[in-house]
């Protein structure tokens, strides 16, 4: 590996971290589209910078990009306040107008100048990390590090501004300043990511990591951390993969890496992943079914029928699933005797336990004013644990009326 690749790798990794952090803020403010609009609005700035400076100096192009993207940010935030245009329309319009202007300028630059494409301007469309100079990569690393540091320092204020900005104003935090800072951070992040990821795909690197992180956590700090880490991984992996084949643009490869992480999380994340959800649903369903079978058999036992025909369990009023019945046998709660089923001693104990837990639970629910949706459908084990913790203290029902 060449030393230059190593510097570039460091650059794209910190860039990924930075994008993941900034993206979390946009996700939580429901302004993900803003990233796309601002990224596209850098294009006219890049070309203008090139035309004015007459060369593709990093600073000229970067400054131009920063100027037009800030102009776009100003328009997107002011238009809905000053006119009747809604925010999403304003964002979409600005994206189109600026990008269109950028493309038009690009073809002018190509005809008049020494050839914009030969000057490498097309690399800004999709990103070409391998072509980055060492100085560019170092600037990129430093800027990304500064942005990340600011965000970590201000995470408390950022949380308030995302969650409840009127509360923030009420306690004297200057929400206007924070909003401005977020815009500025976003603009800088977009501009520094252009050489690596490009105008078209920067938004994806900003939006996908936080959306992925949302699968893994319900807390703000962790969302920032995980999103930053996912961004860093995508940045590093994408750069490595695209450096194996130089003709592969870095931007798309980084975005594909981020998307892969997203797909994996979508399926395997423990609480919100599709797989976990499905499995939990099946398990709950199966256990409810087993409970029904055990209670049914227990009722029969009370009225003197030790053995119940298999058909009566699988059809008739109970209509239980055969897989649940197999599970009952597997766990040793019931046993087969020819075509008939009966409870084992273990099964009787289990059935009695579940009946008594159910009764206690209903008694508790009757005494509770508020029924908690997360807590109504429980197993006997959970009910026992919960009621023992609350030591069955049933509050007086008329506690409000005593005022």
């Amino acid at each position, binding site marked *: 590996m060449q030393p230059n690749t190593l510097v570039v790798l460091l650059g794209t990794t910190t860039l990924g971290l930075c994008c993941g952090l900034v993206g979390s803020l946009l996700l939580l403010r429901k302004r993900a589209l803003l990233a796309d609009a601002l990224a596209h609005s850098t294009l006219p700035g890049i070309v203008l910078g090139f035309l004015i400076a007459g060369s593709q100096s990093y600073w000229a192009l970067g400054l131009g990009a920063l100027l037009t993207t800030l102009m776009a940010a100003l328009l997107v935030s002011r238009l809905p306040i000053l006119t009747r245009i809604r925010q999403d329309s304003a964002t979409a319009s600005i994206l189109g107008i600026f990008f269109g202007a950028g493309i038009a300028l690009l073809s002018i630059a190509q005809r008049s100048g020494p050839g914009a494409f030969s000057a490498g301007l097309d690399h800004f469309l999709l990103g070409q990390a391998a072509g980055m100079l060492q100085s560019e990569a170092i600037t990129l690393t430093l800027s990304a590090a500064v942005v990340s540091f600011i965000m970590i320092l201000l995470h408390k204020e950022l949380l308030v501004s995302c969650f409840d900005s009127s509360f923030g*104003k009420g306690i004297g935090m200057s929400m206007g300043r924070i909003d401005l800072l977020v815009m500025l951070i976003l603009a800088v992040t977009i501009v520094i990511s252009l050489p690596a990821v490009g105008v078209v795909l920067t938004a994806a690197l900003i939006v996908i990591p936080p959306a992925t992180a949302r699968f893994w956590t319900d807390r703000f700090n962790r969302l920032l951390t995980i999103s930053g880490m996912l961004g860093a991984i995508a940045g590093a992996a994408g750069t490595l993969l695209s450096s194996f084949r130089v003709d592969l643009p870095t931007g798309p490869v980084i975005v594909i890496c981020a998307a892969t992480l997203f797909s994996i999380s979508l399926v395997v994340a423990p609480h919100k992943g599709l797989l976990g959800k499905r499995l939990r649903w099946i398990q709950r369903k199966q256990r409810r079914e087993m409970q029904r079978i055990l209670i049914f058999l227990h009722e029969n036992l009370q009225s003197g029928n030790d053995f119940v025909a298999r058909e009566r369990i699988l059809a008739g009023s109970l209509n239980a699933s055969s897989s649940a019945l197999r599970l009952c046998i597997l766990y040793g709660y019931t046993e087969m005797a020819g075509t008939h089923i009966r409870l084992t001693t273990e099964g009787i104990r289990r059935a009695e336990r579940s009946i008594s837990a159910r009764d206690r639970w209903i008694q508790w629910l009757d005494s509770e004013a508020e029924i908690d949706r997360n807590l109504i459908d429980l197993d006997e084990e959970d009910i026992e644990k919960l009621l023992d913790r609350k030591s069955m203290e049933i509050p007086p029902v008329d506690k409000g009326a005593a005022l």
Partner: protein
Amino acid sequence: MSETAIEIHDLTMAYREKPVLWDIDVEIPRGSLCAVVGPNGAGKSPLLGCVLGTHQPANGWIKIFDVPSDRSDELIGFVPQRESVDWDFPVQVLDVVMMGTYRRLGWFRWPGKAQKDWAMECLSAVGMADLHSRQIGELSGGQQQRVFIARALAQDAKIILMDEPFAGVDAATEETIRTVLADLKKDDRTVVIVHHDLQTIEDYFDHVLLLNLRLVAAGPTKTTFTRENLLRTYGGQLTLLDEAAEAVRRIRSGRSIRKSGDL
């Protein structure tokens, strides 16, 4: 400490050119449980916003415990309208309550164990300590309201503003919120609530502020919540007029019946 918690003088507020509050002059005494009542668009939420400092009045001023509101260090708690909160937001109950400590912490500093303990204490005060690690969307309506009340307690707010805490909650939840309100009043806190249900004003609040862009009347519920004042508040709006008349009739005739029924 002064007997007047909130003093509003000559307050006018406008969105662009349209006035939403006009020439409001009112005092809300300390320790009162005050309802802000008026038709839709009467400027109830903007009034709370002005007291909280999120809205800038065009003219006039507000004093909090005799200190002009922009210089006041007094923390004002705010319980937002249910629909205005993003319940999907990745915060846990304890995180929300900890926000109440942020002002005292100041910029850049991170909350530590002391803040966490204090937030837990405030959660216990509203009976929610058990649920501190829940994501806020997993709570029931009454529990959600209580989280924000706990945040106001964590601010050690002497004044708490609530925007329609009773909107769309069931009877049991309403009762729970009332219990918490009674506790707040016992603590000598001043609570100002935007309220829509004219039927319950008499039972829940000791002060009332009738608003319809201008201030119609304000004062103790007994003397202020009258038929004449309600008719002036709800103007020519017929259905509302009927509702108001119905509420007043119920109060006039029903109060004696219920009082004797309680005994």
